[in-house]
C-alpha cells in the first residue's frame, strides 16, 4: 500500500507544543461552567423573566379592573 500524501504535509508536532496546547485547553475547561450548569442558568433566567412578565400582566389587569370599578361607582 502506498503512503498517503498527508504524511508529507505536517506542522511542527513537538511534545512542547502538545504540552502547551493541553495547558490552554485545561485552563479554558476549568473557566467554563459545565454545559448542564449553563443550561440550568439559562433555564432559571428564562423562567424568571416569564414569571416576571406574568406578574406584570396580572398586576396591570387587576389595576385596570379596579379602575373601571371606580369609574362605574363614580358614574352611579
Amino acid at each position, binding site marked *: 500500500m502506498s*503512503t*498517503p*500524501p*498527508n*504524511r*508529507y*504535509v*505536517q*506542522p*511542527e*508536532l513537538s511534545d512542547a*507544543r*502538545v504540552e*502547551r*496546547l*493541553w495547558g*490552554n*485547553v*485545561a485552563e*479554558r*475547561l476549568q473557566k*467554563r461552567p*459545565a*454545559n448542564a450548569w449553563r443550561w440550568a442558568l439559562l433555564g432559571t433566567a428564562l423562567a424568571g423573566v416569564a414569571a416576571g412578565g406574568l406578574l406584570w400582566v396580572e398586576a396591570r389587569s387587576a389595576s385596570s379592573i379596579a379602575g373601571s370599578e371606580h369609574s362605574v361607582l363614580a358614574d352611579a
Partner: protein
Amino acid sequence: MNQPRLLSTPPQLTKSGAGPSDAALVLAARVGEEWAREALFRRYARMALGLAYRILPVDADIDDLVQDSFLYAFERLERLSNPQAFQAWLSSIVVRTAGKRLRRRRLQIRLGMLRSEPIDVDEVVSRAAPPDVAAELRAVYALLERLSVEERIALVLRRVERLEIPEIAEQMGLSSSTVKRRLSSAEARLAKVSKS
C-alpha cells in the same frame, strides 16, 4: 446494558502498551474525569494539528483551531452515540471548525481587515516527499486559495487525506452528491492549473 467500569484514577497501560480504549476514555471524560480528557487530548492532538494544518496551512492559526475543536468536543461528549468513534467525530469537528475559520478569514480579507497571504508551497510540502507526490501536493496547495471553502476542504480531504467520498461527506456534514459536485469543480481547476 453492561457499561465499562468507570475509574477515578488513570488506568495502567495494557500489555500491548495501547492504554485504555477510546470508549473507556470517553465514558470517563463524560463524568468529568480530567485525566481521561487529557489522555484523549494527548492521543489525538497530533492528528488534529496535522489535519488542521493540511486544510489551513498557516502554522500560527492552527493552535487556536485545535484548542477550540477539543473544547467543543469535550463539552458535547454526551452527543457522541458511539464512544469508540471519538477519532472520526473529532476529525469532523476539526474539519468544520477549519471551514468556519476559512470563511471568517475570507470575510476579513474582503473587508480589508486582514491581508491575503499566499500559501508558501515550499514550506508546506516536505522535502522528503517522492517527486510525483510532491508535484501533486504542490499543485493542490498552489490552487487552494482560489477555491471556495467547500471545494478547498473537499479537495484536501480527497487528494491529501485520501478519503473516499462518503467519508468526506461525513466529515464535512454534506451530502455525497454535494461533495461530488464540489470535488469535480475543484478537480477541473486543478487539471487546468496542472496543464498550464
